């Protein structure tokens, strides 16, 4: 049985071709320079792939979650940094899909149809995992809001044209006073700061920015005042498996590079010793299992079923797996790994264990679900009695 529909197979094939032609040949160059891969947006224009999460009624490609995961996996195979640009733009769109009204969606998605990108601004210097500790405020003023504060570690922050930004509309209410706003890049007082130089995902643009008396009209408020925390959490739940899909692609690439290297170095020896053989087997076991879990998560989402728990599991499972597999690959390939682009995959994987909620925060979510007082299993003692 084919698990992918003919449409999905076609999407995967197209994504693979795009990645082979446009991403793989230049990933190393942009990793070295740390510059943003502007060229990629132009290259992606024809396929409209940056609109894959936008429903067709808004002129997007309207891919379901499973199909989006196929594309992201292929991009992760090519370069998780470039994949992150796509994933983070979609992250910002999800917030609008979740909380925006029809007019806001139209407005927010319009630039995306032209391969402009979006950014999601939640994190602040003192509010990383502790989202509620943010101090950016949005004060009601006339027909709109005046936003003041600073955001850091924002992906696409220096290159996006539209942003979803979280700010407190009621400082006294804490997280219940958090609200989400659409903020256009060209509003005055929006000051983009320095770009971060990172260990991995280097071509992905990550910046610090400040908002100084940035005025937005009331129609830019997503949902109601105080909905911010709910919107942020729901958006992240939806978007996290995208990172998982990138990680699966990254890990598969490491494995393929390893095998390719072995064939090159040992042309007459199709099978290396068992130690190495089994290490490769272990890598494939992990990659395949992780890939299936992403599919499962996406299938739940497409079916309209709850998937918050699976979302957290898939992000943690896949990024931890990518870290293990890439580390193993670099080590197995010895100096070849250490002097080639393989090291990049290891550096990229490390960042993925941190962003979109650290894997510790995911474990908090998962353990809460595990420990929730809804016993699924029949207790052992009573099982014997029946």
């Amino acid at each position, binding site marked *: 049985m084919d698990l992918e529909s003919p449409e999905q197979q076609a999407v995967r094939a197209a994504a693979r071709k795009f990645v082979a032609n446009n991403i793989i040949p230049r990933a190393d160059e942009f990793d070295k320079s740390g510059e943003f891969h502007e060229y990629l947006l132009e290259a992606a224009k024809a396929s409209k792939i940056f609109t894959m999460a936008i429903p067709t009624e808004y002129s997007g490609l309207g891919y379901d979650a499973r199909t989006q995961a196929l594309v992201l996996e292929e991009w992760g195979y090519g370069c998780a940094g470039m994949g992150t640009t796509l994933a983070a733009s979609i992250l910002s769109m999800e917030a609008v899909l979740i909380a925006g009204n029809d007019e806001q969606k139209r407005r927010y998605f319009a630039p995306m149809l032209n391969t402009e990108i979006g950014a999601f601004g939640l994190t602040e210097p003192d509010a990383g995992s502790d989202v509620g500790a943010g101090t950016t405020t949005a004060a009601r003023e006339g027909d709109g809001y005046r936003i003041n504060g600073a955001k850091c570690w924002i992906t696409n922050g220096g290159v996006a044209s539209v942003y979803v930004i979280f700010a407190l509309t009621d400082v006294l209410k804490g997280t219940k006073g958090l609200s989400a706003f659409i903020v256009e890049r060209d509003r005055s007082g929006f000051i983009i700061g*320095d770009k971060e130089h*990172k*260990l991995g995902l280097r071509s992905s643009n990550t910046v610090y920015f400040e908002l100084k008396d940035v005025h937005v009209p009331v129609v830019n408020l997503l949902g109601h005042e105080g909905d911010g925390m709910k919107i942020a959490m729901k958006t992240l739940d939806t978007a996290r498996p995208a990172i998982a899909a990138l990680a699966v692609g990254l890990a598969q690439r490491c494995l393929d590079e390893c095998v390719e290297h072995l064939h090159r170095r040992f042309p007459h020896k199709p099978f290396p*010793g068992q130690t190495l053989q089994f290490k490769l087997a272990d890598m494939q076991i992990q990659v395949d299992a992780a890939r299936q879990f992403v599919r499962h998560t996406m299938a739940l989402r497409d079916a309209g079923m709850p998937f918050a728990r699976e979302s957290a599991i898939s992000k943690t499972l896949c990024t931890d797996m990518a870290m293990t597999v890439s580390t193993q690959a670099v080590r197995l390939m010895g*100096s070849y790994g250490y002097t080639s682009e393989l090291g990049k995959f290891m550096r990229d994987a490390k960042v993925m264990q*941190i962003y979109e909620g650290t894997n510790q925060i995911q474990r908090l979510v998962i353990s809460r679900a595990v420990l929730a007082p809804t016993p699924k299993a029949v207790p052992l003692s009573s099982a014997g009695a029946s």
Partner: protein
Amino acid sequence: MNFDLTETQQEASQRAHMFARTYLDGIAYDLDRCGVLPKATLDALAIHDFFGLLVPKASGGVGAGFINHILVIEAFSRSCPAIASILNNHALAVHAIAQWGSDAQKQHYLPSLATGRRLGALAIHEHGPSLGIGPDALLASCRDDGFTLTGTKAFVRNAGAADLYVAFATLEPVAKNPSLTAFLIDAHTPGLTIGPRLDTMGLKGCPVAHLIFETVAVSRDALLGIESGGSAIVDRLLSLGSVAEAAQSVGIGRAAVKHAADFAEKRVQFGQPIATLQAIQTLLAEAATDCHLAWLGIQRASQLVEDGGAFEVDAAMVKTFVGRFGAKMLIDAIQVEGGLGISESKPFGVDGTMPLARLFRDMAGTLLLDAPGDFPDTLIAKSITCTGKP
């Protein structure tokens, strides 16, 4: 059983730590960026006698012993692992001459190497599936008055910076089970070229390149040890190298754990320093435990080296252990610091630079398995199964 260092060793360790803080802390970041070793640092290493630790006093060295060497490598690695790597490669090359060189060779080479006027390097690896096999293996053919060497030595550390290479070649005609022969090759020997410097992931201050030999003619004086006696030398050097590299990874690990722990005490999330969270404590505790246990194994292996006993199995065990946990130490230390942990520069809100990203890359360069298929597990297994026993 005594796990304590002798007084002399304690002093040596303190000196090394002091040196690292004074001379290495300040250059590590820039060295990682530009890769060019500052002359002042090399001079300082020479003045403080760090180049001659493994050279006997009689040959102009310090004769400090292997434990002392390990202490220095660990201490330097906390500040700047690239320097530790340069020094270790030099020390092993020097050790080969001190151990297997003729009196004339020792007199000729050791004084300048011991004082750091000249730098040494080892040229062991090749591109082929194993040494002596492969289209560009380094082959040596016998002439009346010496040898001619042709081929490539791959991934040579200290390449370009070194004045002398201890290079291993296979004698022609190549036997079915080729054995190696060691040669001392001056960097200026005609026919020897240093390939372009390779772009490495970490240890960026320590240059890596291929050495290309095009009919390099050397006299018999260049022969180190006996003809076809090189395999035993390589085995010993790789075993010593395993212990030293393990010490390097412990130094890196300890520096990372310390930095992450300090960070965790200052970083407040959810109203409390993250150091108070059990999840953070576990990450730090596991990394500290791995460093500690690895260090005990390293100490034991080094003691065996110094006592002149068989240490190869211990060295292999240490290599296996750090291979399993070394990378994890850095993966976890960075995790403790969250976004700031992956910063390669001076991120917003931080004084100075963040070191963990660099140490993560340095650790990757420290843990490579360079002999394909030659896993330390195999050696260990042979030591405990009947099939492996003679």
